[in-house]
Structure formats: structure tokens, C-alpha cells
């Protein structure tokens, strides 16, 4: 959640100051979200000592340094070493860890699965979340109860969600397995590669929907009623109205959620996967993050594992830059 609240106003505030001029619409069109970014007037505070502002910044900088930069540097460093499994020393091996990883067919297979998995989870979590939000937004009476029911799932911790998801796919009592059997599909999670992948996607999507739902709903409610009404007078087809007016106005929310969902699918599905494969991946599909964990903590190959996490870091870095450069450009921030 903290990333969620940090990211959005920051990016919006940025575009706001660039456009300058009349920004009076911004308050309304994005409801609660834009409040922090909305005020164009920056207050200048004078400090008596030039060191004081740095002192105020220090706790935040310390957190970033200790929890982000330091581990990153450690990871990069150890990715060039071959660690003794029992911790008795390490040998500098240069790029060997990287070349080993990138030459490994298994690793490339996992990378391919991760890409497909991320795409599927992001797509379905976003589209189902949007669909539910649009429907919930249309409900007039009893909508509070309706929304609460939809948001509930988000309060569940990832491993618990994984467990509940596992129960859905349980060989003996799982309702989804029962349902599939009815159609002649015998789901065997943990045994069959495809079945396991399927249930991983379903549970991961299911877990992420409430989050997307909340943001889409608040985005929808940030669209001024009068704009919808003007559209109702201008355009008969509700479906067309949605594509031409509602969706473009939701674009900032959708873009933000896209980044969050990609990150979620890449990293935060760890708990779900862990419960599904029960620490012993064997033939089952896993994602890159889980592979990092398996090699590092189960295989005790700290060097290879570090190399993998550096690669992962680069992938996410490139992906985020790509998203901001090419997709955000098409997003209309009001």
C-alpha cells in the first residue's frame, strides 16, 4: 500500500506543475487521490542551518539505504563470487554465475513461464477488477455492503490466500476441482504442470482483484457526474460511452495499477507459489523470484542466486522505464 500512495500523487504532481496555468479541474476529476498533488503553490521554508533539512531527511534516506541500496550492492557483489555452501569462504568467479544462469535451459524456461504468468495475472486481475468496479459503481442501493464484500479478500495475507486457493483446488474437497471434473477435466495441482500453472494464475488473480477494484472504483467515482451525464446526452450506447469517455478518464488509475500489478505478479505471488509447490518445485512451474529463493536458500548457491536477483532487478528496471516512457505518454492526466 505504501508504494501505492507514494507513487500516484508524485507522478500527478509532476505533470501538474509542468502544465501550469489553469489547473482548476484537477481537484475535481481525480477526487481524493489528487489532493496532495493538487496544490500548485509550493511553500518555501527557510532553515536557519543548511544541515537541518538533511537531518530531517536522514530517517527516510537511512531506510532507503539500509533496505534497498545496501542489499542491492551486496547482491551485485556476491553475484561475482562462488560461495562456499557452509560459509567458509568465497571465490571470485567473474561473470561465471551470469553465464551459467543464462545458458541454463531450466532458467530460460522459468523466465518464459514468468513472462506468461505475469501477463495473464496482470491482464485478468485488471480486467476483472475493472468490470467489478464498473458494476459496483452502477449499484445505487446497498452499494456499501456490496463494496465491502468485494474488498474483503484484500485483507487476507498472501500465504493464507494461497492456502485458501489451495483448498479451492484440493484433490478431495476443492470446489473448482469438482467443477472441472464435471466437465471431464481432472485437475491435479502439484502433479501436472499445466494444472498447477492454471491454479497459480487463478489464485494470484483472485488475490489481486480487490486491490484493483478499490482503485478502479475510486477512479470511477472521481469522474464528475456531470461529465457522465453530458456523455449520456451525447451518446446513446453505454458501451461506446465507456470506451470513449469513462475509460480514457480512468487511464491514470489504470496505468498506475498496471505497474503495481506487474510488480505484484513478478514478486508478491511468492506466497501463493510457495503454498502451491510446497517448497519442492520439481516439475512444477515457478517464477523467477521463487527460483532465486530455491537456489539461494534451498540449493545454497548464493552466488548464482544473487546473479539471478540482479538480472531480475534489471528486468523490472527496464520494464518500469518502458512503461513510463511509452505508456504514460498516452495517459491523460487532467
Amino acid at each position: 500500500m505504501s508504494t501505492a500512495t507514494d507513487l500516484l500523487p508524485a507522478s500527478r504532481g509532476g505533470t501538474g506543475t509542468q502544465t501550469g496555468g489553469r489547473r482548476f479541474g484537477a481537484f475535481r476529476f481525480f477526487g481524493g487521490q489528487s489532493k496532495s498533488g493538487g496544490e500548485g503553490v509550493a511553500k518555501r521554508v527557510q532553515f536557519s542551518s543548511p544541515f537541518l533539512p538533511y537531518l530531517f531527511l536522514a530517517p527516510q534516506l537511512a531506510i532507503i539505504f539500509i533496505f534497498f541500496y545496501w542489499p542491492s550492492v551486496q547482491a551485485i557483489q556476491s553475484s561475482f563470487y562462488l560461495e562456499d555452501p557452509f560459509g567458509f569462504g568465497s571465490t571470485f568467479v567473474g561473470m561465471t554465475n551470469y553465464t551459467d544462469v543464462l545458458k541454463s535451459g531450466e532458467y530460460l524456461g522459468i523466465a518464459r513461464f514468468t513472462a506468461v504468468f505475469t501477463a495473464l495475472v496482470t491482464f485478468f486481475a485488471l480486467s476483472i477488477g475493472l468490470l467489478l468496479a464498473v458494476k459496483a459503481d452502477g449499484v445505487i442501493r446497498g452499494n456499501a455492503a456490496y463494496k465491502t464484500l468485494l474488498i474483503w479478500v484484500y485483507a487476507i495475507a498472501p500465504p493464507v490466500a494461497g492456502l485458501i486457493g489451495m483448498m479451492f483446488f484440493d484433490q478431495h474437497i476443492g470446489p473448482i476441482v469438482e467443477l472441472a471434473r464435471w466437465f471431464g477435466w481432472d485437475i491435479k495441482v502439484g502433479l501436472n504442470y499445466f494444472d498447477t500453472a492454471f491454479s497459480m494464475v487463478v489464485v494470484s488473480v483472485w488475490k489481486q482483484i480487490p486491490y484493483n477494484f478499490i482503485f478502479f472504483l475510486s477512479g470511477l467515482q472521481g469522474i464528475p457526474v456531470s461529465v457522465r451525464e453530458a456523455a449520456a446526452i451525447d451518446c446513446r450506447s453505454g458501451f461506446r460511452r465507456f470506451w470513449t469517455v469513462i475509460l480514457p478518464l480512468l487511464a491514470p488509475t489504470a496505468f498506475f495499477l498496471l505497474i503495481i500489478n506487474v510488480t505484484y505478479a513478478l514478486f508478491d505471488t511468492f506466497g501463493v507459489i510457495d503454498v502451491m509447490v510446497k517448497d519442492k518445485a520439481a516439475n512444477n512451474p515457478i517464477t523467477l523470484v521463487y527460483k532465486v529463493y530455491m537456489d539461494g536458500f534451498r540449493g545454497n548457491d548464493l552466488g548464482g542466486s544473487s546473479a539471478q536477483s540482479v538480472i531480475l532487478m534489471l528486468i523490472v528496471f527496464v520494464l518500469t522505464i518502458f512503461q513510463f516512457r511509452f505508456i504514460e505518454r498516452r495517459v491523460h492526466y487532467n
Partner: protein
Amino acid sequence: MAAITIAEVSKIYHGNVEAVKSVSIDIEDGEFIVLVGPSGCGKSTLLRMVAGLETISKGTVTIGSRVINDVDPAERDIAMVFQNYALYPHMTVYDNLAYGLKNRKTPKAEIDARVAEAARMLEIEPYLARKPRALSGGQRQRVAMGRAIVRKPAAFLFDEPLSNLDAKLRVSMRGEIKRLQKRLGTTSLYVTHDQLEAMTLADRLVVLNGGRIEQIGRPLDVYHRPASTFVASFIGSPAMNLIKGQIEGGSLQIGLYRIELGSRAPVEGAVTVGLRAEDLRLAGVGEDAMLFQVDYVEELGAQRLVHGTIEGQPLTIALSPEMPLSGDLAVTIAVDRLHFFSPETGKRLERGTSFAGDAPAQNLRLETAS
């Protein structure tokens, strides 16, 4: 272009809250009707029922020859201008204007022509490629108007379109709306809470109060013959003075003063007397007069509003600023300028003889009772 008939229309919300109570208005083709009233009087609800943004609980609305109760808003052949403009923020001005036409499958060439014409009329041609956020309030207002014009609808619906503008711009836009409506001859329904806007724009005014129509009429008729104390106090600035009086045997008693009404006394007994601030004047030397105790003075430049009391009842008088003020004043009023209302119902009480046939204004005869 079409006539609009609103017949016994009511709006009932959940919990039996009746926002509009059996309202009927016949709007002629090309007429400019202004719905005016305080907030919560149901004027916006009524407009939104005509637009199709609210369902009609009872009664029928007819545009042209078509009952439109169950017609989709987009099919009603109306265009609406909203208070906060409701422009599509992600579209350029051109697309904002063209959107409604595109959805109606209008040929591209005709869209271009209509947008160009509307843009020329409203002088927004230089901004066609801009997004609404790059426009000022007045420009946005014009774009909102343009979006209504390009559609060439049977009727324009305006929902307080000028309330978000500053005072100066409001006056100039007011003139522009009036001119545009006359030029296009499109039937218009305009909602406002500003009585001045209502007076200046309307062909006919509809004064609403608590979901009911208090009065329908041309602005000057409403001003000069308000149908109730509500209309009297709502239309006109400053509001009409309303004081308590008593009619006995053809003369009006206000405190210690008695005013002879002759044969023109409407009723016997207690009445509410209405006096326009500008109808009261200073009494000449030797003329019968009432003592007006001055509380304070408001200088408006062209006018001077003097607030005070007659016989303990609060009153406002509009005087020319040239006249010297010194302490309390002796004031008088022409008898035919008095309005009478029932103290119980607030309804206007007509006098014995008709207004038109009145003798030339007579000065009132004042007799001090004691």
C-alpha cells in the same frame, strides 16, 4: 425546434420525498423560459427530468409532438449546458463539439462545417485544438455552449450555466446567451437561483418554491404584480418590503397611520402590505407623510438604500443619492403602488377595481389616528 409541454409532472424520491409537485408549464416554440427559485425548490430536478437524467415519477413531458417520458436522453433531441461545463477533459475542443455528432453518425464533412460554424459564432476558433484544461472559465463556458449548438437540438437546457463565472464575465455571457438564443430561435429552458439573471434573460419566468409553481409570467408582470409574498420577496433587489397592516372600512391602518383606499380596498381585516423600495419617496412640504426612522444607509452609487423602520416595522427605501439625508425621514407612497397579500396564505389580494383602469396616481391621504 419545438414546443415543450410539461403536464402535471411530479418527482417523488425514495421515502416519499416530493421534490417537484405536479408542475405544468406550456413552453412555446422558440421561447426562453427561466426557472427561478431558491436552492431546493425543485428547479434543477424539473430540468433534469426534461433532459432524461432523472426519471419522471408522475405526469408527462412532451417535446414537439412526442411524449419523451421513456425516451433515452440521447434520443430526446435536447442539448444541455451544465454548471461546471462538463467538458470531456481528455478531448480537444474540436472533439468535445464533434462527439455528439460522431455518435449520431453525422458525415465527417457536415461535422466539420457545423463545428466551424459554432466556433465562429462563439469566437472559439483559435482554441479548437486545445484541451479544456488549457482554457479559461469563460472559454470553457463557450465550448459548453458550442457543444449544445452544433447538435441543432429542439431545445436547449441550461443548468445554472453562469454560476461558476466571475461577476463581470457573468454579465457579458448573459447578454451573449440571450443574443444567441434569439438568433437561433431555439426553445430554451434555463435554471438559475439568481433573480437578476432570470429577469434579464427570460421571455417568461417560472418562480418555483418548495416544488410548486408560485407564478408564471413575463419578467415585468412578475415584478409588478407578484402573485405571493414569496415572489414579492424573491424577485427584485432590494426585496419588496412586507409589513403588517389592517384594513377597516376602506382604509389601511399601519400602526398609527391610516391610509384611505377608497373603493379599492381588497378585503377587510389583517393584510400583508407590500411596498417596493423605489415606490416609497420623500414627502414634499405640506404633504401627508409617515415617519421613517433611519437605521443605516447603503450607498450603491446610482442609488442609496436607506434601511429603517416605520412604526417599528423594518423597511428599505431606495433614494436618489443627490438628496440630502438628515436624521429621520418623512416618506409617502402612491396608493396604487401598494400590494396586498393575505397574511395566512401569502397569496396576492386583488383590489376592487382593476389596475389598468386606475385613475392617475393619487397621493395617499394620511390621517394620524390619534
